[in-house]
């Protein structure tokens, strides 16, 4: 599904990603962990095609196609979804308006007609119930004045509506209370299927207790320096990163 080969990327002349290799198959969940500033969010943004980041070497294949040069909106419509570490506020733009525009953009790509207004509302309300979100959030401006946890849940709502093939979740668990973490985890698990892949960027074992990863990677200084099973995450939780970073150095 996702095949990243020797990926190098820079932002404003700062070389951040230094040769990432990653292969994610349909149905898999991969966790990416690593120290602050190691390049996890950069990697997530590069996968989503953010153009302020320049790929200097290597390539990104999605479903067998090279998408390194594809525009972010095209990737999104192809089924790549990024849940942001810091979802941005967009004043004056209705949450439900954006949701609908996003869904219709994807449907258009698939040659489907615009979603029926009534069906759409039913769909959204159903998903909101699952995420235990208040319906009034729909009519508020996108993320504007939302609490940290509400923003993260709003990302999950968008994901649930868009049903991406590849979901990249950048620290969606950070800032969630214990109950919310459980709800969000259920949301992620609900999306798990043999046709989908999920990449979780996280600092904490707790999320991985709920959403069990197939593979855990450690990203450090722009490179994946270790990969393993879910036990690797537990090891990290106990011992931190230094034993691996030292090992590599």
């Amino acid at each position: 599904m996702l095949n990243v080969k020797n990926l190098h990327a820079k932002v404003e002349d700062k070389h951040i990603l230094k040769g990432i290799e990653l292969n994610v198959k349909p149905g898999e969940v991969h966790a990416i962990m690593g120290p602050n500033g190691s390049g996890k969010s950069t990697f997530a943004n590069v996968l989503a095609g953010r153009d302020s980041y320049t790929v200097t070497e290597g390539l990104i294949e999605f479903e067998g196609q090279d998408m390194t040069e594809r525009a972010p909106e095209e990737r999104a419509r192809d089924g790549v979804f990024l849940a942001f570490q810091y979802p941005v506020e967009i004043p004056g733009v209705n949450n439900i308006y954006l949701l609908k525009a996003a869904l219709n953009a994807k449907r258009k790509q698939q040659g489907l007609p615009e979603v029926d207004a009534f069906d759409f509302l039913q769909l959204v309300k159903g998903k909101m119930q699952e995420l235990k979100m208040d319906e009034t959030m729909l009519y508020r401006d996108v993320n504007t004045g939302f609490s940290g946890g509400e923003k993260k849940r709003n990302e999950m709502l968008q994901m649930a509506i868009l049903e991406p093939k590849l979901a990249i979740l950048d620290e969606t668990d950070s800032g969630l209370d214990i109950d919310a973490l459980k709800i969000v985890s259920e949301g992620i698990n609900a999306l798990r299927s043999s046709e989908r892949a999920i990449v979780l960027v996280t600092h904490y074992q707790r999320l991985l207790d709920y959403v069990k990863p197939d593979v855990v990677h450690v990203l450090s200084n722009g490179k994946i320096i270790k990969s393993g099973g879910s036990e690797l995450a537990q090891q990290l939780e106990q011992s931190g990163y230094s034993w691996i970073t030292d090992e590599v150095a």
Partner: protein
Amino acid sequence: MSNSDQQLEDILQQDYQHGFVSDVESETIPKGLNEDVVRLISAKKNEPEFLLEWRLKAFRHWLTMTEPNWANVYHPPIDYQDISYYSAPKDKKDGPKSLDEVDPELLATYEKLGIPLKEQEMLAGVAVDAVFDSVSVATTFKDKLAEQGIIFCSFSEAVQEHPELIEQYLGSVVPYTDNFFAALNSAVFSDGSFCYIPKGVRCPMELSTYFRINAASTGQFERTLVVAEPGSYVSYLEGCTAPMRDENQLHAAVVELIALEDAHIKYSTVQNWYPGDKDGKGGIYNFVTKRGDCRGNNSKISWTQVETGSAITWKYPSVILRGDNSVGEFYSVALTNNRQQADTGTKMYHIGKNTRSTIIAKGISAGYSQNSYRGLVKVAKSAEHARNFTQCDSLLMGDKCGAHTFPYIENKNASAQVEHEATTSKISDDQLFYLQQRGIATEDAVSMIVNGFCKQVLKELPMEFAVEAQKLLGISLEGSVG
């Protein structure tokens, strides 16, 4: 410059969509301005003596004035002798009785502009007084309005049919001495609209006028007068767009609104005159004087404007809050791109007791444009407990444009409350990427962010106008972002 600034600029570089020239033959008098020209205009329109006298006084006063230079706009000197002050469509003499009699070419032109007169008649319930060049060519729904005593007609017609109303109210809000452009307009105004709502009548439909500039180097000097008798209500829409032109064209309109006791006038404008090409060549000089007078107690005047066109905009729709408890509102979106310059804002003159005013101004600057908000809140000694709230927000796209705010407050009454808030922000990379990541195309993302930014103002527009305005904001920024 960051990557996205570059993309931003690409989207901004889109040609004016309404640029084309219509072929209707015009009857134009030679260029130049003197007393004879003023007399000729008045004679062609078969005007009563008082009006000719008024024009002449205005003209003589104008000769003593100089063009204002305090606005934050720059243009080559205007040669007022190089302008033709009158032009009329050729078929004017017979006067079309219905749309079927209107020059088909003209109708086609409106069609291209997205102003389907015919459909409007059937669908929207909007009465249209379309001004083509200087003379009205189509007026609809008049009979229906007449049943309620509402007068809605071209200014020329009002001069013939209701000279007493014109004599009573013309120049009573904007005297010909007011400013250079108002004096010029008073001397040579060609046509415009007149609207009169009798006592206690709530006008059952939105009244609307579409203006266009056509004949080459013909200045447009529109005159609009709206009178709302006690307890009446009217919502008036004005929208305009113009064909592509290579020369600068002067547009100096005057709009006067009079709200008597308990009356409410809502005046909405979408302005999309030709802004010039991306290097700033051509485009309309839009020097407008708009003022409303809340003459009676408890009266209310609301100005809502969406300004996206013109090479230069010089415009300050104002309200004189004379009656006690009267209310003035100004909601504005001014968008400038490429080399456009806008200096716009409002003036609120608080005179009566408990008068209230609200100013919400949103400026969007892109390309190399300059966008200034200029506002004056003046509270007279007599204005006990007057209140004003002003909010001014600027949104910058790219790093070569300018946004400026010039708020002036003159408060002579200690019981008055005047509040001012201002923000400046850049369209953020984060917002753009967020929307793109949700599958929204860059241009649509920009349009969405900009419309969100303007929401407070757009929601004040009548529904069908709001939709048009939203599209316009998107179109005006197309080719500009990324």
